[in-house]
C-alpha cells in the first residue's frame, strides 16, 4: 500500500460537503425567539437481532449514600437461560427514572445510581424494573435531603405486591417483560408504571408483557372495558405492545393534569436543559417556578408541553455556580383559563455537563467556565487526559528567552526540576513581559502585563492594575511524589505520554486563597510530573480559562532535565547481538523475563528478541508490540545500561501497568 493513509482518510469523508443540507432558517428563528427545539429524544435501537437482558444474581446490594449499613434487597430473578450482559459505561453515572404514583397519577422518580455500591453496575433494564417492583419505600438510599424525603413519602405504587421479574428481552425497540402471576391482575396504573419506566430507557419505545412466560395483550376493545388491562394471548384482540401514547387513548386518571417528566422527582436538571412537560391537557399553558431551599425565587418561565423552557445557566450561577437543591413548581392553566392541579417536585440543579472524557481538555477558546470574578465550580471529577502537554517534544533552548534559562540554571533545584516553559507565550497574552520571579530554593518565571491585575511584590497584596505577575510558572521545592494538589477541588490528571509510559502527571487548581478568596486572586495550580524532583506552581490572574491554556502550553526545555519523548523510531537492527531469533509477542514471555526484576536490554533481547521501536531523549526507551495490541515500553538510563527504571505496558485503551511492579 503506497498511498498515504491520510489521503485515504480524506477520501472517506462520511458526510462530504455536497451532501449537506441547507440551513433550516425556521430553526434559526426559533432559537433567537428563545425557544430552541432541543428535545430529549428517545433513541430507538435498531438492533437486527434480539438482545436478551436478564438480571443475574448477586448485584442486588447497595449501600447507603452516607456510608451506613448495607441493604440486601430481595433477589427477584430466576437463573437466566441466556445471560447477555449489556455493560454500563463506567464513566457514565446514570440516573434511572422509575414511575411511581402520587395522588394516583404517574410520577417520574429519579434513582441516582451513584449510591449503588456495586461494580460493575448491572444491566439497567432489569435494575429499573426491580426498583419499580420493590416500590418507593425500598429505596433506602441514605440521608436524603428533607424536601426529597418528604416528596418520596407521598409516593405509592399500584404494582401488585409480590410481583417479581422473571425476564426482560429488548429487541427492535420493544421491551418484553416477563412478570410473575401476581401481575395478571394489574390495574391501568400498574401497567402504565411499567410501560413508562421501560420506555424511559435508551432504545426502548414500547413495552409488551408476558405472565409466567405466557404472552399478554394489553387492553381489549372487544371486552368492552376501556381501560388498559392484561389478557392472555389466547384472545389476541388487544395491543401486543404499547408505548406511552397508548395511555392517552384512555380516559383514565393515569396522568395528572401536568406532569414534569424531566427532571424527575429528586432528579438532576442541568444548565441549558429543558424542563419536559407532559400531562392530560396539551394545550395548557404552564408557569414554571424554581425556588431555592431558602425560598428565594431562582427562575420563572412560561412553557407548554410542546414548547419547553430551558434552564438558563445564569440561574445556576446566581444560585452559587454549582449543584444545589431546589423546588420546581409547575402550575397549569387550562385553555379556558381555569387553574389545574399544580405539580411540585424537588430537583437537583447542576451546571453544564462536564466534558470529562475529553482527553485534551484544557481549552482556551470555548470553555464553559464562568468569568474569573465568580466562584470556581467545585469540580470533584478529575479531568482525565492521556497525553500530558509536556510529554511531547521539548522546546529547543534557543526558542526560550535567555532569562528563563538563566533563572532555572541559578536555582538550587535545577538538577531535579526541569524547566517548563510555554510554547507560545504571545498567544497567552500579547505584550507580556517576562522576568524572573523569586521562589526561594526554586526557580520562578512571571509575565507582567501593563495595567492588568497582579501584585507589586511576591506574596504582596493584589490590585487590579499593578501589572505584575499576571501569570507564571515556577519549580519549587517539595517532594516529587507529593499530593499537595489534592487540596484543590479542581483536578487534572494525565496518564501517559503519546508514545510512552512514564509521563504520569497530576495537578489541582483553585483560587490561591491568601485573601478572602475568589475575585482578584490568581488561580493557582500545583503540578506534579513523574521523574521530576519538585512541585511546579502555575498561576494566572486572568482566570481559570487562562490558567488551563497556560498549562496546555507548557513544554520541557531540552537540556534542562525533562524527558521530552520523541516519536517512535524503528529499532536499529544491528545494535544488539545474541538476540532471540524471533521477537516474542505474548505478555507471559516478558513477565517471565522480568520476573527477577530489572535486566539489561542485551539479556532481555536474548530472551524475547529485538525490540520493534526505540524512543526517548532522556531515557533510552525500546518498545515491543504485543499481539493483543498493547505496547511495552522499557525505560533504560542508556542504550548499554542495565538500569531499567520501568517496564510500562500500555494497553490499547491507554491503561498503563509497570511490569516491574513498582
Amino acid at each position, binding site marked *: 500500500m503506497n498511498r498515504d493513509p491520510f489521503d485515504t*482518510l480524506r477520501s472517506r469523508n462520511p458526510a462530504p460537503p455536497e451532501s449537506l443540507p441547507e440551513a433550516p432558517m425556521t430553526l434559526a428563528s426559533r432559537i433567537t425567539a428563545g425557544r430552541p427545539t432541543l428535545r430529549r429524544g428517545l*433513541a430507538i435501537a435498531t438492533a437486527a437481532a434480539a438482545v436478551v437482558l436478564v438480571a443475574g444474581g448477586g448485584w442486588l446490594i447497595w449501600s447507603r449514600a452516607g456510608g451506613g449499613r448495607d441493604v440486601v434487597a430481595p433477589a427477584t430473578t430466576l437463573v437466566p437461560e441466556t445471560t447477555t450482559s449489556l455493560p454500563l459505561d463506567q464513566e457514565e453515572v446514570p440516573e434511572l427514572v422509575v414511575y411511581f404514583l402520587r395522588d394516583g397519577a404517574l410520577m417520574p422518580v429519579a434513582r441516582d445510581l451513584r449510591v449503588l455500591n456495586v461494580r460493575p453496575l448491572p444491566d439497567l433494564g432489569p435494575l429499573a424494573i426491580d426498583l419499580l417492583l420493590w416500590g418507593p419505600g425500598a429505596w433506602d438510599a441514605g440521608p436524603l435531603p428533607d424536601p426529597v424525603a418528604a416528596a418520596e413519602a407521598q409516593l405509592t405504587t399500584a404494582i401488585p405486591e409480590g410481583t417479581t421479574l422473571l425476564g426482560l428481552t429488548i429487541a427492535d425497540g420493544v421491551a418484553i417483560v416477563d412478570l410473575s402471576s401476581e401481575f395478571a391482575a394489574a390495574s391501568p396504573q400498574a401497567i402504565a408504571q411499567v410501560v413508562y419506566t421501560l420506555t424511559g430507557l435508551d432504545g426502548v419505545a414500547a413495552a409488551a408483557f408476558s405472565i409466567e412466560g405466557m404472552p399478554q395483550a394489553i387492553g381489549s376493545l372487544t371486552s368492552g372495558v376501556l381501560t388498559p388491562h392484561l389478557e392472555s394471548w389466547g384472545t389476541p384482540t388487544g395491543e401486543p405492545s404499547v408505548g406511552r401514547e397508548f395511555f392517552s387513548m384512555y380516559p383514565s386518571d393515569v396522568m395528572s393534569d401536568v406532569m414534569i417528566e424531566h427532571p424527575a422527582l429528586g432528579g438532576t436538571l442541568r444548565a441549558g436543559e429543558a424542563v419536559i412537560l407532559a400531562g392530560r391537557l396539551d394545550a395548557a399553558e404552564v408557569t414554571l417556578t424554581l425556588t431555592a431551599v431558602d425560598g428565594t425565587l431562582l427562575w420563572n418561565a412560561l412553557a407548554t408541553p410542546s414548547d419547553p423552557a430551558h434552564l438558563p445557566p445564569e440561574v445556576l450561577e446566581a444560585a452559587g455556580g454549582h449543584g444545589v437543591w431546589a423546588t420546581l413548581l409547575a402550575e397549569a392553566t387550562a385553555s379556558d383559563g381555569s387553574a389545574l392541579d399544580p405539580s411540585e417536585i424537588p430537583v437537583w440543579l447542576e451546571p453544564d455537563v462536564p466534558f470529562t472524557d475529553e482527553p485534551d481538555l484544557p481549552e482556551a477558546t470555548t470553555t464553559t467556565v464562568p468569568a474569573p470574578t465568580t466562584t470556581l465550580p467545585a469540580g470533584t471529577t478529575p479531568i482525565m487526559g492521556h497525553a500530558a502537554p509536556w510529554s511531547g517534544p521539548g522546546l529547543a533552548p534557543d526558542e526560550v528567552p535567555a532569562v528563563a534559562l538563566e533563572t532555572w540554571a541559578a536555582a538550587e533545584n535545577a538538577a531535579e526540576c526541569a524547566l517548563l516553559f510555554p510554547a507560545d507565550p504571545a498567544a497567552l497574552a500579547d505584550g507580556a513581559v517576562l522576568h524572573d520571579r523569586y521562589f526561594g530554593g526554586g526557580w520562578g518565571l512571571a509575565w507582567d502585563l501593563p495595567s492588568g491585575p497582579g501584585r507589586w511584590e511576591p506574596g504582596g497584596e493584589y490590585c487590579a492594575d499593578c501589572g505584575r505577575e499576571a501569570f507564571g510558572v515556577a519549580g519549587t521545592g517539595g517532594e516529587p511524589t507529593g499530593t499537595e494538589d489534592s487540596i484543590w477541588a479542581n483536578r487534572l490528571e494525565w496518564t501517559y505520554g503519546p508514545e510512552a509510559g512514564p509521563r504520569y502527571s497530576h495537578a489541582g487548581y483553585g483560587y490561591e486563597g491568601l485573601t478572602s478568596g475568589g475575585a482578584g486572586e490568581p488561580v493557582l495550580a500545583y503540578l506534579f510530573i513523574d521523574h521530576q524532583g519538585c512541585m511546579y506552581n502555575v498561576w494566572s490572574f486572568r482566570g481559570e480559562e487562562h490558567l488551563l491554556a497556560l498549562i496546555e502550553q507548557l513544554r520541557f526545555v531540552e537540556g534542562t532535565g525533562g524527558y521530552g519523548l520523541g516519536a517512535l523510531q524503528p529499532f536499529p537492527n544491528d545494535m544488539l547481538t545474541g538476540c532471540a531469533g524471533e521477537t516474542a509477542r505474548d505478555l507471559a514471555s516478558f513477565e517471565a523475563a522480568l520476573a527477577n526484576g530489572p535486566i539489561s536490554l542485551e539479556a532481555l533481547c536474548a530472551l524475547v528478541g529485538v525490540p520493534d521501536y526505540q524512543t526517548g531523549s532522556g531515557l533510552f526507551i525500546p518498545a515491543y508490540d504485543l499481539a493483543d495490541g498493547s505496547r511495552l515500553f522499557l525505560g533504560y538510563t542508556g542504550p548499554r545500561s542495565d538500569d531499567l527504571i520501568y517496564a510500562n505496558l500500555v494497553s490499547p485503551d491507554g491503561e498503563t501497568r509497570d511490569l516491574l511492579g513498582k
Partner: protein
Amino acid sequence: MTVVGAVDRPASPEARFSTLFARHYPAVFGYAARRVGRDEAGDAAAEVFTIAWRRIARVPAEPETLPWLYGVARKVVANQERAARRRLRLEARAAVSPGAAVEAPGAAALDVEAALLRLGSADREVLRLAAWEELQPAEIAAVLGCSANAAAVRLHRARQRLAGEMTREVPS
C-alpha cells in the same frame, strides 16, 4: 439596496445570528454527521447554534466564526457520543453490523478507518478536522484551543501515528 448611515451601525444580535446560521449550519451539521451520524446531527447542530445564540456576544467575527462553532460542536458531540455509546454497544451485539453493507469500501479504506479508531481521541480529532473539515492548522488551533504551531505539530504527529497504525495492522 444601500441605506445611508447604516454602514457603521452594528448589526442586531438577531441579524448577526441569522447570518452566521445561514452560512455555517451546513458545515456544523456535517461536522456532527461525521461523528455521530446523520440521524443525530440535526439535534447536535441545533444545540450548537443554541449555545452560539446564548453567547452571541462572545462568538468571534469571521473568519474565526466557523472554527469557534466547531469547538462548541466538539463538546456537544462528546456529550452525545457518551450517551449513545450504550446504544451502539447494543447494536454491535446484533448479528449484522448496521450500515456495513451499504457500501463496500476498499481494503485500504477499511484499514484506515480501523487505524483511526485505534488512535487516541486527540489524534483522531485532529486528523478528522484536517481530512474531513479540511481545516488549516490555524483553524484547527482555534477549534482545539491551542496555538497554530501546536496544531501543526499535533497534526504532523497524528499523521505519523496513523501511518504507524496502518503498518502495524498489515504484517509485511
